[in-house]
């Protein structure tokens, strides 16, 4: 008897199915005590626009604009970020999670801890203006080596 071809199995094994272009969301939600979202501030509003557009271009199936940032639970973790991932920034923008959420922004735990994506929908310019209006603190990053610092 001629073996029957399992078409579903054949299709699953032989066809390359394109992965949806979405960011990887970590299984673990943000810790309850992750109260701060930190983003290096380069003093150029165009950067946020450019990044939100690049994010949407790359993760087009997710249907959201996105901005990269990092969560922190306390000042010591902000300090750690300033000395490591965000060392190249002279200024750090510090937002409270609750303030971002109140303004309609989603905070997704994406890629590697403690990275997060500030995600939003709607008109990009309007939403970036709304983000700029969210209460936040800008801290000088004491770990940033400015171009004026004497060479070590």
């Amino acid at each position, binding site marked *: 008897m001629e073996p029957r071809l399992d078409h579903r199995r054949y299709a699953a094994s032989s066809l390359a199915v394109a992965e949806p272009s979405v*960011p*990887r969301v970590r299984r673990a939600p943000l810790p309850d005590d992750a109260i701060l979202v930190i*983003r*290096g501030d*380069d*003093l*150029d509003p*165009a*950067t946020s626009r*450019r*990044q939100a557009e*690049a*994010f949407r*271009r*790359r993760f087009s199936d997710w249907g959201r604009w996105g*901005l*990269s*940032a*990092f969560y922190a639970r306390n*000042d010591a973790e902000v300090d750690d970020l300033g000395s490591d991932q*965000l*060392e*190249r*920034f*002279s*200024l750090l923008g*510090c937002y409270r999670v609750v303030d971002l959420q109140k303004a309609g922004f989603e905070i997704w735990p*994406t*890629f*590697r801890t403690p*990275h997060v994506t500030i995600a939003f929908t709607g008109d990009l310019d309007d939403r970036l203006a709304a983000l700029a209006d969210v209460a936040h*603190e*800008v*801290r*000088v990053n004491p770990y940033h*080596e*400015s*171009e004026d*610092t004497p*060479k*070590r």
Partner: protein
Amino acid sequence: MNPKTHRRGDHVTAPQVDLIVDLNTMDDTGLPWAFLDEAPDPARIRPGRYVLVGSGVTRAIALIVDITDGIVHLRPLHGSVRTNAHLLDDPNRLAC
């Protein structure tokens, strides 16, 4: 939180970058990323090469780690551009 004062808009002149990258970004590699086709001169962007990257007034020297499907991954170096400028092919272009 202890607010520190700053004045947004106190822009300083920053050298032209080889690749505009928001250094906050990350993807599955854990590294910042950018689209190759958004580089002013994509031919300069090659794995193993040190280039000047950044956005706004933020600048860093970064090692190009790989380019996959038009996505450039890079590893920014700690320290100022001046500290790491010797790694560039042409460090003199940063001289003012």
